């Protein structure tokens, strides 16, 4: 690990002033960053600890919920309003990592955690465009079982590993950020980027921008929502495929639906085609299957991850059927 200075941010302004300096990095719980620094994949010269900034979870008058970026993953999953109003988010968080890691990890850090592509981590042994732009990507010809089936590019086929972000994408969450030029909000679905020619640029944040909070808009039908994660072992493993969904039915007809997929792309994948095609349709297995086939029509699996296409279809259909209750 290279050497670095460490300072706790007193407030948002102080954090941004320190964090916009060259080679500075924000530090949340450290569960991803400390590991990446140890692997020399990140080499900041200054760490600005923002884990002491707002971790408040506030129910607002317009029905939205505001979650301070320093809220620990455990605290978010434990919060009454999250458990009752946004169960898919509580479930997504509880399906991730381990009890110890969830106690340390912050919302801000979870949003910006980096891929688990093994070639990215294999600093000395493999080529990786994300680590060293222009070098090539050893995953494309290699063991790519865990890699992307949607939105990938010839430069990079990595996936975003977060469970929490999949639920946030389904909920149309907004990310509040502050930089030297002031504050703005970004839809979480626009926070992360597809790899394109620049997989090393992972988000649409400007240099030094600090995430201060995540806002969950009111969504009454999310009270009935599900997160299902399929993985190689039943606990403490990243997703192969995951699905976050909420379904609003009116006499067996889909009035509204929200669905996002994890484990399939460089960002949490909001299934907008599926949503559009399902609205107004009867809540049947057939219409669920037709909608997910439309969503995955452009899937381009790699040699080792063809199974993900079928797995995604089955998981989506199963989740929607669960939300619809007993259907034929």
């Amino acid at each position, binding site marked *: 690990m290279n050497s670095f200075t*460490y300072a706790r941010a007193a407030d948002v302004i102080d954090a941004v002033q320190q964090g916009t300096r060259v080679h500075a990095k924000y530090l949340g719980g450290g569960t991803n960053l400390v590991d990446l620094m140890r692997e020399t994949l990140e080499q900041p010269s200054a760490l600005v600890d923002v884990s002491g900034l707002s971790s408040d979870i506030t129910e607002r008058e317009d029905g939205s919920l505001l979650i301070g970026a320093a809220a620990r993953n455990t605290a978010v999953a434990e919060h009454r309003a999250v458990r009752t109003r946004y169960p898919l988010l509580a479930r997504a968080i509880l399906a991730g990592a381990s009890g110890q890691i969830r106690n340390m990890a912050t919302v801000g850090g979870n949003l910006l955690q980096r891929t688990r592509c093994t070639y990215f981590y294999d600093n000395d042994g493999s080529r990786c465009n994300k680590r060293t732009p222009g070098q090539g990507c050893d995953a494309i010809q290699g063991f790519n079982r865990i890699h992307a089936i949607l939105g990938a590019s010839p430069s990079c086929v990595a996936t975003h590993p977060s469970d929490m972000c999949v639920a946030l994408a389904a909920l149309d969450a907004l990310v509040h950020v502050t930089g030297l030029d002031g504050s703005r909000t970004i839809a979480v679905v626009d926070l992360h980027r597809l790899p394109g020619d620049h997989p090393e640029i992972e988000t649409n944040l400007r240099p030094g921008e600090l995430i201060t909070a995540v806002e969950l808009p009111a969504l009454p039908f999310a009270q009935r929502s599900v997160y299902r994660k399929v993985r190689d072992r039943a606990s403490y493993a990243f997703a192969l495929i995951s699905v976050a969904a909420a379904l609003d039915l009116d006499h067996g007809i889909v009035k509204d639906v929200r669905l996002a997929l994890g484990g399939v792309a460089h960002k949490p994948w909001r299934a907008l085609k599926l949503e559009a095609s399902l609205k107004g349709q009867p809540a049947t297995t057939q219409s669920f299957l037709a909608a997910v086939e439309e969503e995955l029509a452009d899937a381009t699996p790699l040699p080792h991850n063809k199974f993900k296409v079928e797995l995604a279809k089955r998981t989506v259909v199963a989740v929607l059927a669960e939300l619809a209750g007993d259907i034929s």
Partner: protein
Amino acid sequence: MSININGSPTNLPSDTRVSLLDLLRDHLNLSGTKKGCNQGACGACTVLVDGERILSCLALAVQYEGRSVTTVEGLSTNGLLHPLQQAFIDHDGFQCGYCTPGQLCSAVGMLREVRRGLPSNVTNDLEGESITLTRDELCERMSGNLCRCGAYNGIVYAITEFAETTK
């Protein structure tokens, strides 16, 4: 710059790179806490910070300035084993013992989480007020602690017995 370790105020190292795990083992000779993977994947380095379980390998010591850390050495009092340690002995909750300090600290933190009603991935009713510590709940909540010897059966019995006697 000070951190409290098992009740004693301790100076933090000036080198910001030192992990909480290395501070414990290499600087303070508290070698009970183990380094298994050093990357968050095994749980052998689990300690309690203000009663909450965390992984000391993914923690920089400086992040925990002013906080109170309890390691396995701090679980016993006046040379008397913590009842959970005794339960691990009674139920053969280990073979080589390498994962044990992490299992013990993790279980102590986990039971606090259960008592305050924190749900887990296998909790059916997210809205419930209290948690019943079934075998499934226990295994899910302890899944961040691997045991390469596979002493899981004994570990589950030991924690179950301890949880029942301290309800």
